[in-house]
Each structure stands twice: as structure tokens, then as C-alpha cells.
């Protein structure tokens, strides 16, 4: 899923050496990676919404469920990138926080939909 960006990014500094290497990123690959994160998050929000609705979560429980699902997604994405985030993305925030609030609306929509269909039928 995650395509490795050009691995000339080096953040290693050995003592006594003060070379600052500009991390060079292949823009296409970076874009591709970011897109795949976005797609996985959207998909997971939708599925999570349907699950939350079927299980009958209401109120705060539902939102907590959403954030749990998002955290699990972040963790799995980080694991897929073998925890060396800088080889694939330009910052931690991409893999951890990006797209969480975008997915929230889809989650709420599908949560409401499933909840209504199942419980208030």
C-alpha cells in the first residue's frame, strides 16, 4: 500500500559530523502515499459508522468508537510503514492526524443511517 519515497532522506547525524541533508522526497510517491491514507480512512469511517449503528451505540459512545477506529487505523498504517515514518512521509502528523475530521462527517452519516434502519424500524 505505502510506496517507499526516494530513500535519500537521511536524518542520521553522527557525532562530529554536521552535514544537514535536505530530505529529498519524490513528490509523486508522497502524493500517492497520502492518497492511500485518505482512502483507507474514508473507507474505515464508513464501515465504522455502519458498525456503530448496528451495534446501537448512542451519544458519546459512538464518538469514542470513531476515535478508537481512527487510532487503530493510524497504528496499522504506522506498522505497515514499518514505523520508519520518515522514509514514506514528510511528517508524523500526516500518518496520525490527517483526515480524521474529514472522515467524521461520513461516519456520522452512516452511523445515523444504520442506527435508524436497525433500531427504529
Amino acid at each position, binding site marked *: 500500500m505505502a510506496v517507499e519515497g526516494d530513500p535519500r532522506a537521511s536524518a*542520521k547525524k*553522527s557525532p562530529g*559530523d554536521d*552535514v544537514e541533508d*535536505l530530505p*529529498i522526497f519524490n513528490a509523486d510517491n508522497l502524493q500517492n502515499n497520502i*492518497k492511500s491514507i*485518505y*482512502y483507507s480512512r*474514508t*473507507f474505515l*469511517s*464508513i464501515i465504522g459508522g455502519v458498525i*456503530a*449503528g448496528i451495534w446501537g*451505540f*448512542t*451519544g*458519546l459512545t*459512538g*464518538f469514542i468508537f470513531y476515535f478508537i477506529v481512527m487510532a487503530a487505523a493510524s497504528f496499522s498504517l504506522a506498522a505497515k510503514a514499518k514505523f520508519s515514518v520518515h522514509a514514506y512521509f514528510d511528517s508524523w502528523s500526516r500518518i496520525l492526524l490527517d483526515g480524521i475530521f*474529514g*472522515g467524521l*462527517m*461520513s*461516519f*456520522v*452519516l*452512516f*452511523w*445515523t*443511517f444504520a*442506527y*435508524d*434502519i436497525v433500531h*427504529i*424500524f
Partner: protein
Amino acid sequence: MAEDLVLDTAIRDWVLVPLSVVMVLIGVLRYFVSKLMRSHQVPDLKVVKEGQVILRARNLRVAAGFIPAKSFRSRKTYFTNEENGLLHVPKGQAQNAQAQMFSDPNLAMDMMKKNLSMIIPQTLTFAWVNFFFSGFVAAKIPFPLTQRFRGMLQNGIDLSTVDVSYVSSRSWYFLNLFGLRGLFSLILGEENAMDDTQRMMQMSGFGFDPSKSLGAEKDGIDIIQHDWALPKLEKRAEDALKKLLK
């Protein structure tokens, strides 16, 4: 009051599901229509040239560490030279580019078409929802909201004792509007769904792009400090090898 209202099954069948299905279909339709209606404008040669010059200048700036100092300086002069440097835009010309962009009929038509294709289906669907589906409780949202949202969410329902969770179909329409964006980006590929704000930014960005970013690139190249990586490469290779052998 938190009593559970019993809602008719027919509401599910004939309101919620059709509304969602209609919105999805309208989104798909709009995507294909906008694809068909997209007029192919022949890119202006001057704009393309300027864009490529900017790319070259940017590459120079980013990769400055990989070429020796003398070649860097000669390239830098080529770009930033006051008389015939590529990035130096005389003042009069800078204003011109903007004005030309906005009076260009093609571009204006494109923007208008895109705006219309966004607005018209939304307006029509909203009017349809209001006409057919007003005056009854449509759905129950699974989380409680405060009383302030009552006016917004329960538009057709005139009882004030009904729980705020029971919403009318107008709010179901809005919920769909926002929530289906994610679905569209999944099934239509690549964000083609509701990025009208993004597109407007792109379109207006085109007008400013040539003049201002040329100046920005010129400043960027002027500022940069040339730091040749070659002398340090041997040390870096040595360190990397040492780490491998450890």
C-alpha cells in the same frame, strides 16, 4: 422527554433510502456531466514556458548542494540577471498577466460552468426535499444535541416537546450532503466530488501564478547559500559504512 417515538417503517423505505440514493446518483451524474462539458483549452505557450522556467529554478534551488560553486553561480546569473535573466519580470508586464487572465473568456466561462454545475443540483434537490418531505419526523440521530439546534434540525416539526434527536428530512439532506463527500471520493476516484472551493482556488491561482511566483523564485535563488556537498560526502560515506559494520 426522552420517550421513544415509534416511527413508521414506511418512512425508512420511502424517505431515507430514496433521498440518499438520489443524492448519490446526482453526484455521479454531475461528475460525468462536468467531465463531458470540460472544454479543452489549448494551454497558452507563454504560460507553459513560464511554468517550466519556474520548475527549473526550483530544481536549481533544491539541488544546489550537488553542483560545484562555479556552476551554481553561472546558473544563478542566468536566472536572476537584471537585463535578460529569465526570472526578471518588468513591472508593467506583471500587472498585465492578471488582467488578461480574468478577461479571458474561456477561463471565465469555465469557472461559471463549474459553479453552476455545483449550485444547480444542490438547489433543485433542496427544493424537492422541502416540497415533498416536510412536516414529519424523518430520522433519529444517535447522539443528543442541545436545545439550540432544535430550530435548525427540526424544521418542519412544530412540537416543542419532541426530543432534539428526532430530526426532519431537511437535516437528513444536509447530513447526506456533507457525509457523501467521502463516499464520492472513493467511488469516483481522486476527489472529484465536491472540491468546488479547491477548484476556485486553483482557477484564481492561475492568474496570479506567473508574475508573483517568478518574483518569489528569483528572491529564493538570490538568498540561497551555496553549500557544496562533495567535500563532506566522503565523511558521510565513511560514517554510513561504519554504522553498517558495527
